């Protein structure tokens, strides 16, 4: 591959994959490969989506009714299964995003608190 080696990429935190999938689908229906690719690209190639883990996650989300799926045809004319966000999924995304932001902010606060005790 042209960009970074797999070993240098960050692996996803447990539970974050669902959030990223939902977020990716906010821009419209996408198939599995597309989702994986898009996550990787929009993270500036920092995140690696294990494809083997992607499909169980998709299945889980579908099972929970947050996404729905249908077979369609891809941009380069291949048959693929396209996933799209449901209304419940949208709500879920909003909820999860705010939760994630709070969590991230909290973690940053801890990490950047070097010498902060004196402030």
């Amino acid at each position, binding site marked *: 591959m042209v960009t970074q080696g797999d070993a240098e990429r960050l692996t996803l935190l447990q539970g974050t994959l669902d959030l990223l999938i939902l977020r990716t689908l906010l821009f419209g229906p996408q198939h599995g490969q597309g989702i994986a690719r898009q996550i990787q690209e929009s993270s500036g190639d920092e995140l690696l989506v*294990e494809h083997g883990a992607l499909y169980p996650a998709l299945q889980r989300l579908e099972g929970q009714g947050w996404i729905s799926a249908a077979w369609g045809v891809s941009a380069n004319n291949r048959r693929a299964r396209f996933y799209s966000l449901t209304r419940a999924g949208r709500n879920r995304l909003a909820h999860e995003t705010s939760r994630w932001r709070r969590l991230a902010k909290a973690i940053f606060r801890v990490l950047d608190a070097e010498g902060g005790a004196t402030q």
Partner: protein
Amino acid sequence: MMFRRRSDRDFADEIQAHIELEADRLRAQGVPEDAARHLARRAFGNVIGAQERYYDGHHNLLLDTLLRDVRYALRGLVRSPGYAAAAILALALGIGATTAIFSTADEILFRPPDLPAPERVVQVYSLSRKASTYLSSSYPDYLDFRGGARTFQSLAAYVRLILHVAAGSAARERMAVECVSGNYFEMLDVPALVGRALGAGDDVPGAPPVAMIAEDLWRSRFAADSAVAGKTILIAGQPFVVVGVVPRRVAGLNLNWVSPPRVWIPLHATVLASPRFARLFASRSATWLVLTGRLKPGVPIGSAQAEVRTIAARVDGNRDLTAVVFPLSRSKFWPSYRNQIRTSLAGFAIAAGLVLLLACANASNLLLGRALVRRRELAVRIAIGAGSGRIVRQLLTEGAVLGGLSGAVSLLVAAGLMRLLRRFPDALGLPLSVDLGIESRTLAFCLALSVFTILLFALAPAFQAARVEIMPALRGGGNAGSRGREQWLRGGLVALQAAFCMILLVGGGLYLRALRMAYATDLGFRSDHLLTAAFSLAPPGRQVADRIWNAQQTLLQRLATTPGVVSATLSSAAILVPRPRAQVAQAAAPAQSVTATYEYVGRGFFATLGIPFFEGRDFAWRGEDAGGVAIVDRTLARSLSAGSSLVGQTISVEPPDRPAQRFVVVGVVGAAKYGSVWAQPEPHFYVPAKPDDVTMGFLHVRTSAPPGSLAAPVRKLWTELMPLAPLDDVETAEQRVNAELTPQRVAGGILGGFAAVALILIAVGLYSVVAFSVAQRQREIGIRLALGAGRGTIFATVLGKALIPALAGMAAGATISFPLMRIIAAKATNVSPHDLSTYVAGALVLLAVICVAALVPARRAMRIDPSITLRLD
């Protein structure tokens, strides 16, 4: 599942599409065709794993995986037949032993009889409040209960007698004959298999004598002839007409009454068997009948109890007798015996349970060892995507397969053990006539036990194995952390086995010691080379008595010249059977009386039995003894006259129901244990038999040849002399002693067998533990040796790993034995349950086995060559 089901095909298509899309993208980036495909596939990772996860998530096909696991487990077992055989055999022994004991206990204590509405059938016993003992009832009592009880649909009475029966063409044989009231079969609600059942019309004085025969008798003596009704059989020499056949399932309601009845006659027909029964029908003090009845539908047992108690009080307010109603399944034997039987069975059950737990610990250990050997295989399976839940399920299935196979084999073990128990009807210390067999309740118990066993032995190893850490396992080395846990688990299992083994050894040892002491006991007479037999005594009547006496004398003369016979004599009591008692005192000091047993003896009694004289002389059998003489044993002599000689003194003897008699003591002989091997000899005296005595029912023959070989000649001689009076119980004195010791012999045999099995199990288990740990630590030991550790130190470390848990287990086992032996070794009468030497001996045996089992592999550890070991891997 909530969502629309997708086919596996659909999912596979999606993955395929994914890989194609990825390859397209790579191609677009300029990657060559082949490489693009390859890279795309690699990027996806484990396709099969993803599919499998999807499959598992979606299909939940329990049966599917189950079958696969079972097949896999079976393949594994076939691959290592030694391991499989050891585990299956061990478990089968444990399950089988427990099943056999359960089935016996169930049959004896709980199983309802095979009758219509058995819960309504009860037995009624009289209870003496003062003596707190259960009694039979008298005939007038029976009539009062039957007349007064409104809660009963019908109330019957029965008594079981042992009588000579000649049925069909076969020779006369002693059989249990149940004498039943006319409503007995109507009460049981069981119709005759052939012909008709006995009815009320048959049970009146003077009715024509009729009888029913048991199904097995009908088959063996009458070839299952459907026209058997109307044939005549002889009972106690009297002709009875057979009216019907009793089906096999009615085998008598009481189990501990010699043997199951094979002939039924009306109660009033007992008078034909023996005229002395005639006066019993009128006597209130003669309690000879057991009452049994069927309650009216819906009547609770409590109200029957209350009513029966009221009637008992009304019959005679002064008597201390009351009546107790027992459901039939709880009164298969005399109520006071129930505790005794329960203790015996509890002892056996504990022992069998210990064997089962031991087998579980053993199988657990084997399974664990195997899982460790298979660690690499398991790691590979986890690495390629099998979840640990999947692995646990797989290992549990292996356990279930093992358990299932063991369960099947255990039925054979149980059947064998039960056949063995049936061969010793006195095993529980009572003459129980039990029909032991495998039936549905036994099967259900066996199945439940197998399942329980599987959970017990397969769970821990399964979870332990599922915790395997992949990378170290794949590299082939052990992981220090998990190995420590395994060592603990295995050590614990070894300790557990040692503890159970110790308990069984102590139990078996106590019985062994009790038996050794019993056999070594000086009975006071010589039991070797002694043959005994019983004459069946005809009803009194001078003519008959004279004839028997004459025939007996002729028999003795003829026996004296028979080769192999040293001497022969008669007495009024069999050996090891309780004798009648009387109050004895010196005529000079009638106030100081003691209770003594006595018997009448014939000429040459003391010489034949081998009882030594200490003072005085034998009976002279001439005129000088005419005034009434007696010979006392040393126990009686000592308690009547401290110090001075009793020979020449006159003693006064007062049996409970007869006037006092006086005898001059002519001799003092050694004390003999007549009553029981276990008890101390009681004071005893002998009186010479007179020619008109019909009490001389027992023959004793001292032989030079093996005593058993003279049984046939003795029988033949007697048949020649008295063709109509049978000779019974022809057996050697040693057989009688053995019979007396049957409960201890059976218990000792069972516990000893269990202990032997336990020793084998622990030897196998310990060997495998040590051998395995040596194999695992080969490299480590090699390094230690290379670094200069002494071989002795290595040896001690390896041995210590096995010996420390084993010793701890032994100590624990010995401690638990202390309270447990009161139950397990309850019948080892003459040995304390805390007998130190038995504990020490048991510990030494166990220690020896443990050492041998651990030494062999430990020596291998010592011989490890570091220069070879370190180059491995």
